[in-house]
């Protein structure tokens, strides 16, 4: 095992020669080793120096190994304690393990044995620390304040997420693909009392119907060809935590019945099994399909829909929260530049990002920024040419490319009037001045168009054609 900083070990043993041999061996293995000949001395050393590992003999003159272990753990709860025991004291060593020792090793042992025990203990502690760190990171990542969105719609959703997180109610998240349904589901979980338990996600649309039942509920050995052993499903994995059922609209009618029972009773049977399994799980479902319409068309059970739709959250598409695009763009630039904040988006490129309709929503924006960052090279500014072609060539850009609020602000009525006049002129140009066809192009009544032509002083522009066709 590769070690950057040597781990420190305290050895407590009254057998001087044996103790010296172990010290010499472990020091040679790269550990920082200190030794004590009795329990009192060991405890004194523990009080003055923090150790990673305590290796103590069980039988000591004065206070015994058990007392040293308890004293050490009281000082450092993360201390790894390994007990050395003779044959006659294995039972008492087991008792000590109940008090918090990591392992015990029977004397006489070979040096490699102690090396393995130490490495395993350190690896276990490393995994424990890594797990704790990742959990903290996850909680940080899914904190409501960490989710980006200043728009009114998103702020209302954050408020709702905060309120409902503390409850156990079922949530149904709806929204177009890429709007962040899974992110909201995780935010609910990591802000709930279940945050220390698992959130298990499953995309019901990505798994063939025949496999989905076994994925969700597990199966018993021999339930079907290939079921060589009993396997627990996602609901059991999520026990005490949360299950996130994405694309719930893709679920078959038979599975809908089984899910309904879980929602009502929190119990089910594994595929091929007879034992009823009870779970304590919060259910968050999501769909990009119109579930209500599916209910009307008898494609989705209405009772299941109402059971799922206890707390509905409708996520707006990105085009309806354009004010969040600069914030999101900045966030993704930071993400893809490794947290370096020197890269920015040019005004032209930002105009394109702001005016594009984003059918793939935030996921599409993220991909566009990732691509742009990859093309940046040594430059610091993302140009419009760095954006994907579908954004550069989008007709949305011609329509909205000039719509951008400068720092000094705008006169909204004036800007709308300019846009209206421009569109009317284009319609007349397209139709050779034919007011009937121009009105049709604009979805206006002919009389409304004539009134607007008068208001914008555009009567001359339509005069020639009027003489001929009107």
């Amino acid at each position: 095992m590769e070690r950057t900083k040597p781990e420190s070990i305290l050895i407590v043993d009254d057998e001087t020669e044996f103790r010296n041999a172990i010290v010499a061996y472990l020091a040679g293995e790269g550990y920082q080793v200190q030794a004590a000949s009795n329990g009192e001395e060991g405890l004194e050393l523990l009080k003055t120096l923090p150790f990673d590992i305590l290796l103590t003999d069980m039988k000591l003159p004065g206070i015994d190994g058990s007392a040293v272990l308890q004293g050490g753990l009281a000082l450092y709860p993360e201390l790894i304690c390994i007990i050395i025991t003779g044959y006659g004291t294995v039972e008492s060593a087991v008792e000590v393990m109940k008090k918090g020792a990591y392992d015990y090793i029977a004397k006489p042992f070979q040096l490699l044995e102690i090396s393995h025990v130490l490495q395993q203990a350190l690896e276990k502690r490393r995994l424990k620390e890594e797990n704790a760190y990742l959990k903290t990171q996850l909680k940080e990542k899914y904190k409501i304040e960490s989710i980006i969105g200043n728009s009114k719609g998103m702020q209302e959703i954050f408020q709702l997420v905060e309120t409902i997180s503390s409850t156990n109610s079922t949530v149904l998240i709806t929204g177009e693909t890429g709007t962040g349904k899974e992110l909201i589901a995780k935010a609910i979980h990591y802000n709930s009392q279940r945050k220390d338990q698992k959130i298990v996600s499953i995309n019901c649309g990505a798994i063939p119907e025949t496999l989905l039942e076994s994925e969700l509920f597990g199966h018993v050995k021999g339930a079907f060809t290939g079921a060589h052993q009993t396997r627990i499903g996602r609901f059991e994995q999520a026990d005490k935590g949360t299950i996130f059922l994405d694309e719930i609209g893709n679920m078959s009618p038979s599975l809908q019945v089984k899910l309904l029972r879980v929602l009502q009773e929190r119990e089910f049977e594994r595929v091929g099994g007879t034992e009823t399994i009870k779970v304590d799980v919060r259910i968050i479902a999501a769909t990009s399909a119109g579930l209500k319409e599916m209910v009307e068309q008898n494609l989705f059970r209405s009772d299941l829909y109402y059971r799922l739709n206890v707390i509905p959250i409708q996520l707006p598409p990105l085009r309806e929260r354009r004010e969040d695009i600069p914030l999101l763009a900045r966030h993704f630039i930071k993400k893809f530049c490794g947290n370096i904040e020197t890269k920015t988006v040019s005004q032209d490129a930002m105009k394109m990002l702001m005016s594009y309709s984003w059918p793939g929503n935030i996921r599409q924006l993220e991909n566009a920024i990732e691509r742009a960052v990859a093309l940046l090279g040594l430059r610091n500014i993302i140009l419009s040419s760095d954006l994907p072609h579908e954004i550069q060539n989008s007709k949305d850009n011609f329509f909205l490319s000039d719509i951008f609020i400068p720092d000094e602000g705008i006169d909204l009525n004036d800007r709308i009037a300019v846009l209206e006049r421009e569109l009317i002129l284009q319609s007349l140009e397209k139709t050779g001045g034919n007011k009937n066809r121009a009105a049709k192009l604009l979805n206006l009544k002919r009389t409304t168009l004539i009134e607007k032509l008068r208001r914008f002083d555009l009567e001359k522009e339509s005069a020639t054609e009027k003489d001929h066709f009107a």
Partner: protein
Amino acid sequence: MELDLSKTRNSLHQLNNKIAQILAYAELLQLSLTNEKEKERIKLIIKGALDARDIIAVLMTEIPRSEQG
């Protein structure tokens, strides 16, 4: 004459500690040796120590449980 089980157990413990010492130093020595012949000799000491450890383990199981500490 009856065997004092408590004394026997203590003696076995002490013997065990001595074997631990022999085993540990023999292994330390083995780590530093380069001469193949000497390495073979050390292996024999280690094997002897391990065998002695197993004999003591058997003897320990022979002592009635109530007498064990």
